[in-house]
């Protein structure tokens, strides 16, 4: 610092270096922020780009003749007799209807009979059969039914399956794809909304077009009920004990440190715990919402205790003192005054904890929630012991299937999951804004 600056109006080299360093530092910060936001945008962009397709599905719209003698051989309309007609019969009905419709539309094709039949999903006969069994008056009628197209045909309309794929893929041929083009031109084949994606059950490897999230959404809802019923009361009770009643000693310190650590334990460890205790030791059945809910409740408990503790601490001590001065017991002061005032904060924390539990996958893998489940679980409480899936576990399950159509379904399921999380978090924000007081 011996040489004085030459002039106040010109910068000496040292100051210029310092200014440059300042600009570099500033740019680094901006770049970091841009990187974070860009990562978010790419992630959300790929969710939307890859997932929205799952909500639309290709269907073949053709008139189907439900000949009475085929669907009701006894001719009596008796439900038991009609239920004995298998999906094979309905498959033949649909095949014949497709041939008729192609002839009526004047579409010629080089596809073989088997290939034409394979344009339609293997699930379509089962759905048609269920429809007729539900409404027996349909027999003998001719009606236009939307029939699910096969997964590869659906993929072709989306651009996922190309002519080049047809050469290599034994499940689809070029003739079928040309036929699909002709059917689209004739208006027989088109993509429309697919509400069944939210309600249908999972489907086997060969029929991705029929797979839906019904069981998974129901299973997740059951688990959330258990998590809420267990971890909210227990968490709030524990927080009240620690904040309001526990003496300040080593034992309380131990509990608090333990809770803070438990909140940071990897979620998969809770899965190992659930497997060892609830399934191997207590003998509860695998893949059930009960076990899943118990594991997630244990996992959510520390989060709820911590946020409830913070909410209780935020209530000013003057309120407690006033209640005590008026003759309330400590218990009355807490339950009549402190707890109601802390409730918005507690509920906000509970919703955020629930949202975490809803998206948690790893522990569910260990307790068998990734099993293939075709039946809806029953109504609670018995249904809590039926096998079910869960939203994140279903997503994982679909990523492990061979057909890439399932990956698109998985992205669609992610949209559903993120939408639910968005609703929950928005509810938490609204709750905080509307009810929280500043002291």
């Amino acid at each position, binding site marked *: 610092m011996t040489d004085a600056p030459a002039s106040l109006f010109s910068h000496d080299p040292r100051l210029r270096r310092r200014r440059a360093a300042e600009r570099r530092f500033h740019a680094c910060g901006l770049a970091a922020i841009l990187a974070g936001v860009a990562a978010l945008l790419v992630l959300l962009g790929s969710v939307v780009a890859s997932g929205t397709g799952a909500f639309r599905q290709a269907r073949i719209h053709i008139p189907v003749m439900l000949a009475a003698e085929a669907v009701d051989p006894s001719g009596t309309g008796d439900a038991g007799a009609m239920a004995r007609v298998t999906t094979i019969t309905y498959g033949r009905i649909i095949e014949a209807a497709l041939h008729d419709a192609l002839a009526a539309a004047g579409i010629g094709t080089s596809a073989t009979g088997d290939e034409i039949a394979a344009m339609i999903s293997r699930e379509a006969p089962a759905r048609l059969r269920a429809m007729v069994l539900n409404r027996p008056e349909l027999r003998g009628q001719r009606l236009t039914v939307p029939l699910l197209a096969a997964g590869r045909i659906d993929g072709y309309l989306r651009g996922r399956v190309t002519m080049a794929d047809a050469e290599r893929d034994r499940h689809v041929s070029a003739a079928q794809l040309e036929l699909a083009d002709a059917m689209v031109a004739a208006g027989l084949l088109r993509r429309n909304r697919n509400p069944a994606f939210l309600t249908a059950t999972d489907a086997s490897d060969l029929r991705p077009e029929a797979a839906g999230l019904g069981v998974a959404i129901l299973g997740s809802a059951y688990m959330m009920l258990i998590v809420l019923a267990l971890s909210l009361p227990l968490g709030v009770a524990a927080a009240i004990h620690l904040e309001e009643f526990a003496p300040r000693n080593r034992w309380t310190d131990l509990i608090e440190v333990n809770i803070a650590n438990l909140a940071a334990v990897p979620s998969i460890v809770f899965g190992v715990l659930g497997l060892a205790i609830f399934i191997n030791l207590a003998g509860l059945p695998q893949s059930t919402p009960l076990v899943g809910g118990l594991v997630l409740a244990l996992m959510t408990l520390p989060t709820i205790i911590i946020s409830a503790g913070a909410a209780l601490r935020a209530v000013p001590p003057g309120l407690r003192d006033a209640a005590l001065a008026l003759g309330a017991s400590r218990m009355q002061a807490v339950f009549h005054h402190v707890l109601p005032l802390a409730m918005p904060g507690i509920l906000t924390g509970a919703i955020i904890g629930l949202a975490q539990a809803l*998206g948690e996958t790893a522990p569910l893998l260990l307790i068998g929630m990734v099993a293939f489940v075709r039946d809806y679980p029953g109504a609670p409480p018995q249904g809590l012991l039926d096998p079910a899936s869960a939203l994140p576990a279903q997503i994982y399950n679909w990523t492990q299937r061979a057909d890439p159509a399932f990956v698109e379904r998985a992205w669609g399921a992610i949209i559903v999951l993120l939408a639910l999380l968005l609703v929950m978090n928005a509810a938490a924000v609204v709750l905080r804004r509307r009810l929280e007081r500043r002291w």
Partner: protein
Amino acid sequence: MPDSRLVAAILLLSIPAYILGRRRAVSAAAGGRLHSLPGHYGWAAVQLTVLPPLGLHLALAGAGWAGPAAQAAVALAALAGLGAALHRTRPGFRARHAVERGIAGFLLLASLVAIATTAGIVLSMLFETRRFFSLYDWRDFFFSTTWAPRFRGESQLGILPLLWGTLYISTVALAVAVPVGLFAAIHLSEYAGPRLRAVVKPALEILAGIPTIVYGLFALTVVGPMLRDHLAQPLGLGSGASSVMTAGLVMGIMLIPFVSSLSDDIISQVPQNLRDGALALGATRSEMIRRVVLPAALPGVVGAVLLAASRAIGETMIVVLGAGAAARLSLDPFEAMTTVTVKIVSQLTGDADFSAPEALVAFALGLTLFAVTLALNILALWIVRRYREQYE
């Protein structure tokens, strides 16, 4: 009579218990003074009617005694409890104290659930790990460099390749998350105006709220193929979509908000007069941050990084979907590697045979994971707490 109906019946008995207890207290007082509110007498009666029989029921079930005799004992306990409750209901009886003792007991029990969970984790895994080590030499587990489970036995279950994969992927993740998260936090707390803050902070928080399965699928179908097609294959570095880079990069993105929000808290706790002092001495903003704020915040930032590391080590779905399943000791970041968590999942899903070392090894892996993350967490929480006290 099934047990669930017995429990329901006992719970239903609480209604008459409340009514009788309350009425008896009111009539016993006969217009005089009661010690507590009438409702307290009702609740005191409910507690004595319901809790001892339910406790007895649990104890009997735990001891393995079931059947009509046990049920009769439980029902008798409920009726005896009701009788005793009514007997003690006199105007001088301190019903409120009795009720509040009961509630305080429940609150204490609830706070012990967390302790019981930790104990359950440690004990169950210790138990199964002991069984594992009775079937498999612990020296081979900790020091062997080969991981090759076989269905027929003769498996080699060395943890070292898994630990290596875990550490490698976590290092890549931290190499992404720490600079980005830290610079973002610095920029947000020292440079950004309120408008930028109002947009960027919630955006980063969204990143933290996204479930890990979403990141996993992102790694599997977007980042993995992109790295393979645009980086690894043109440079001749590898040909697989699952790699250390894929998993590490995506995990890094996941950890950015974790690092940035923790560091933001810590940086904003540095007292303002330290900043003012540095600026008054002529430091530029970046000099002030590098020479004054960061050294002051360093312990807290280290704690935040340790917490992020513990997250990275325990993360499961991203590595299950993005890192691959091959256990390898290699330095190539474009090769598939696997982690402790991936192997816990793969050894325990499907039809695991819990008497074979191939399944039991997962508990030993789980215990190792628990011990490592616990140590990191305790250290990090201790550092952060020490740091907080410094400026309070």
